[in-house]
């Protein structure tokens, strides 16, 4: 724990039992610092929500502890916010029950919270009649009304349409920036996570698999499982060969597919080659710098904004994204042969761990 830490978990173990089976979350060490945003990623069932609840003090650990030295409240916004029977304004007012706040000050705090999330026009509406997006705004307004020192967010954008997610994520980012609250957020949406993340933690099977600065985790995941979680979905196995190109090691997938990368791995080492989709380049000619060999386009799917291209490369399926309506995206079709390239600085190698 350093000086800036305001919430920390040590040797935490939370055991949950239900009809569907049991689940154990274990976290040896996790710190949340003042004014930082920590995003927790992980597959379904990895324990993200359980960790949030434990950090909020809502889940009793069977071992270890969660310690807060925050001077303000620690509060949590749930994945499915529960509105209380009553108006939207009443739903904000309940956070001040027993807190000795009344009159103009109370009205100002409620008004401030409603305005921050742009639901002041709904103040007198019944909360149970709100749409999914409005309800999430109410839940966030309710939490921010407390002026928390730590805000724990469990999938704050889940179930919203794209426009709703975009608008809410910008308002949330602004609120976090204005209040300088420390945030830990669980999400599946990597793009939204990147809007606020200073650090990323990855949970897999109830264990904290990796934690670090945002770009370090995104670019250098320590296992293939973590790589998939943080969006490094292009993963292919190869072998470091005893040959170099411009001071770079070469990893061979097969005779026609080689990738240059920076690595300390000795020749003969079996590795996972990881390349983020946004760092994989396509060309229908010979390929630009840093070629990694040819592939065949399998599928081209456009959502009107971006085009996702699946390419068969050395027997593996790689994915990349193009801007819709521009350059190659306008002409690319399934079955076309393309040259692929990836800058060595964006190629991440993960040694293959022998199966035990």
């Amino acid at each position, binding site marked *: 724990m350093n000086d800036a830490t305001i919430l920390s978990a040590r040797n935490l173990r939370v055991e949950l039992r239900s009809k569907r089976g049991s689940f154990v979350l274990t976290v040896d060490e996790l710190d949340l610092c003042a004014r930082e945003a920590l995003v927790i990623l992980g597959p379904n069932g990895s324990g993200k929500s359980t960790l949030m609840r434990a950090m909020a003090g809502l889940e009793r650990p069977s071992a270890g502890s969660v310690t807060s030295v925050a001077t303000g*409240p620690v*509060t949590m916004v749930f994945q499915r916010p529960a509105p209380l029977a009553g108006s939207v304004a009443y739903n904000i007012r*309940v956070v001040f*029950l027993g807190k000795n706040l009344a009159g103009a000050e109370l009205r100002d705090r409620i008004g401030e919270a409603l305005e921050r999330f742009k639901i002041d026009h709904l103040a007198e509406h019944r909360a149970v009649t709100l749409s999914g997006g409005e309800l999430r705004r109410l839940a966030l307004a309710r939490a921010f009304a*407390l002026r928390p020192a730590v805000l724990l967010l469990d999938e704050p954008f889940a179930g919203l349409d794209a426009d709703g997610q975009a608008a809410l994520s910008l308002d949330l980012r602004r609120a976090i920036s204005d209040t300088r609250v420390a945030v830990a957020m669980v999400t599946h949406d990597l793009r939204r996570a990147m809007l606020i993340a200073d650090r990323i933690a990855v949970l897999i099977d109830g264990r904290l698999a990796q934690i670090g600065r945002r770009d370090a985790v995104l670019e250098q995941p320590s296992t293939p499982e973590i790589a998939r979680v943080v969006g490094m979905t292009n993963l292919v196995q190869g072998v470091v060969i005893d040959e170099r190109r411009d001071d770079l090691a070469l990893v061979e997938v097969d005779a026609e597919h080689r990738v240059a990368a920076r690595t300390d791995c000795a020749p003969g080492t079996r590795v996972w080659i990881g390349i983020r989709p946004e760092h994989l380049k396509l060309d229908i000619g010979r390929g630009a710098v840093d070629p990694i060999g040819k592939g065949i386009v399998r599928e081209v799917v456009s959502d009107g904004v971006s085009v996702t291209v699946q390419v068969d490369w050395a027997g593996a399926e790689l994915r990349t994204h193009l801007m819709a309506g521009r350059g190659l995206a306008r002409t690319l079709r399934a079955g076309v042969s393309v040259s692929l390239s990836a800058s060595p600085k964006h190629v991440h190698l993960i040694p293959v761990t022998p199966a035990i």
Partner: protein
Amino acid sequence: MNFPSLATLIEITLRTLAICIPALVISLAIGLPIGIAIGRRLFSGRVAVVSLINTGMGAPPVVVGLLVYFALARNGPFGDLSWLYSGQAMILAQVMIALPLVVGITLAAVGSLDEDWELQVRSLGVPKRWRLWLLVREIRLGLLAAVITALGGILSEVGAVWMVGGNLEGETRVLTTAILMYTQMGELEIAFGLAAILVGLMLVLAGLLTAVQQSGRT
């Protein structure tokens, strides 16, 4: 035909209220906290407890009356109280009938809340006593349903109160037992008159509670 005097009718009606209202109040005082406690907590054996309550909700009142009679009989475990054929015995029987209804409906109302409801309120830093107040406010429509159902069960009950009260004139005769008695005597006009008072009473009380319930819809 031997019509009871107006004074007798008023006396029977007031006695009905004097027995039913304490029975209702006691049922609610015991049943609401139990229903809330069971509804909020997951514990081993909960299914068995809830099954028992559900069985109690459908228990034949005459069987409940028989059990109360056995308990209060001179040789029964509580015979020393000398409650048999008294208002206390009738209140006890009505509480035994209404209690499972109050507990069952209350725990169903608590169970209808979002699974995370209490955690969400806790995470907002609401103190414990206020959380309980919020919970009661949140399930108030269900609680009023419990009150109305219990009132109906208590006011309309006849078998058990006859068994333990004895329908003694001037002591334990209430509207339901009087209706039964006059019916058996063939005095149907009197029975109908008393039935009209009983139904009127139920309409007024249930109407008042329903008005409160519906005005609280938000």
